[in-house]
């Protein structure tokens, strides 16, 4: 195929999907109350964008993600490195952290509401728990899988403990840390949407859940599409390139069997 072919092939499936969607709604196969036609959804999207409510909700959701990341990533990486350095403590802490990973996200919501009430604090608490434990876990595992031979090499050449930590262990763990970051934001984004439905009165989760109360299927669909597009662009344009570059730059291709 020519150079025009590649992007066209990416768009074509969505054109087909919208065409099929138009067809089922125009022929009256599905009631517009349940599935409004694409034209209506586009009009609703335009209206929500013009009166600003779409932007406010997008900003609220993205702000919560950023707040969660800013609060939990430095702590997760720091604690992960600190625990991994202690060879007796690390195998003990690992299963505990993986237990909290299993609990991550929305299961914290009832306790969060009990402690902090409805609102920002509860949602931030949930985001913190979701992102923190995954980043902690991946840092811990990342540091522990750096082959000892690199550490010993720096040591025999007179490197101090600080050298080992900053020149060997942290760079060696970076690919695992970034993978953890990407995964945790994926889980966090999903948990956020669910938490916003219950605990707040702004954000995309609230937008679609509130619309369900009024049977506004068009608003719900605008919200669903926004949620999907936001995640896809964040993942494609920020997280995936970050992960790839980190692995290319710091990934260990070990020729030594650990």
């Amino acid at each position, binding site marked *: 195929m020519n150079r025009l072919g590649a992007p066209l092939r990416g768009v074509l499936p969505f054109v087909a999907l919208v065409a099929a969607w138009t067809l089922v709604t125009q022929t009256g196969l599905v009631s517009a109350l349940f599935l409004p036609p694409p034209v209506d959804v586009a009009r609703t999207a335009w209206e929500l964008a013009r009166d600003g409510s779409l932007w406010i909700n997008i900003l609220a959701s993205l702000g919560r993600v950023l707040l969660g990341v800013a609060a939990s990533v430095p702590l997760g990486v720091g604690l992960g490195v600190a625990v991994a350095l202690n060879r007796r403590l690390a195998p*003990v802490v690992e299963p505990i952290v993986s237990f909290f990973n*299993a609990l991550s996200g929305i299961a914290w919501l009832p306790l969060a509401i009990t402690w902090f009430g409805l609102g920002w604090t509860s949602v931030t608490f949930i985001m913190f728990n979701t992102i923190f434990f995954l980043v902690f876990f991946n840092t811990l595992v990342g540091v522990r899988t750096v082959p000892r031979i690199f550490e010993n090499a720096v040591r025999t050449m007179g490197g101090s403990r600080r050298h080992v930590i900053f020149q060997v262990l942290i760079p060696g763990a970076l690919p695992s840390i970034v993978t953890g970051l990407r995964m945790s934001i994926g889980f966090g984004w999903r948990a956020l949407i669910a938490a916003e439905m*219950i605990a707040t009165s702004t954000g995309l989760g609230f937008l*679609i859940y509130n619309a*369900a109360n009024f049977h506004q299927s068009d608003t719900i669909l605008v919200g669903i599409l926004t949620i999907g597009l936001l995640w*896809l662009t964040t993942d494609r344009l920020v997280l995936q390139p970050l992960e790839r570059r980190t692995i290319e730059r710091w990934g260990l291709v070990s020729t030594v069997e650990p």
Partner: protein
Amino acid sequence: MTLRWEVVATWLALLAAATAAWGVAAATLPLPDYYLPPPTAVLATLGDLIAKGILPTYVAESLRRILQAAVLGLAVGVPAGLLLGMSRRAAEFFYPLLNFFQSVSGIAWLPLMLVWFGFGERTILIAVNYTVLFPVIFNALLGVRSVPRLYVDALRTLGASRWRIARDVLVPGALPSIVTGMRLGLAYGWRALIAAEMLVGAHGLGFMIFNAQNFHLTARIMLGMGIIGVLWVVLDYFLLRPLEEATIARWGIVQR
């Protein structure tokens, strides 16, 4: 994955210390009881809910739902992903669509499902099945597509039929990716299930902890969270992760 006795002993000691600290904090801190119930209250709730039969029923409900989604993923998602992956054109067409639908979590569809099906079992099941199904289809398709052409061509030059190539090359080659997809799908699905049970509220562990919050039954919330965590750790640690590791060891393709 060898658990040494030393580790287990340290772990138990740590658990005992944490529980003791929690007990002291609950007894001395000037907080209302519902804020931080003592560990004994959580234990008492465990006994109470088992005796009343509430806990076994709710655990069974949640497990039944996630199991049902796993079965559908295996029975429908895997074959669908494999079939789509076999044809280059079909794979190219469906890849962007599947990628999009996999990125929209099942919970985001919940409001629309509520409009369509109302508050009930059907809405929960659809949200969970959706969440499990798309990563499974997507990864099965990716798995087939990532089998090196070389192997397919090698068999073809030896005169193998399409069916033979599918059975001996494509499906085994896709297995590691399929298992990874199942594990990821179930991880997302378990969380979606808890959220859906909270929002829709028809039995299950999610409903239990969310409903307990309305009555300030914090011990019940903590118990529920503990059970949700333990169930997933058991499922992931003893079933899904060993399965993934074994599959990659047996069928993983190491390219040189």
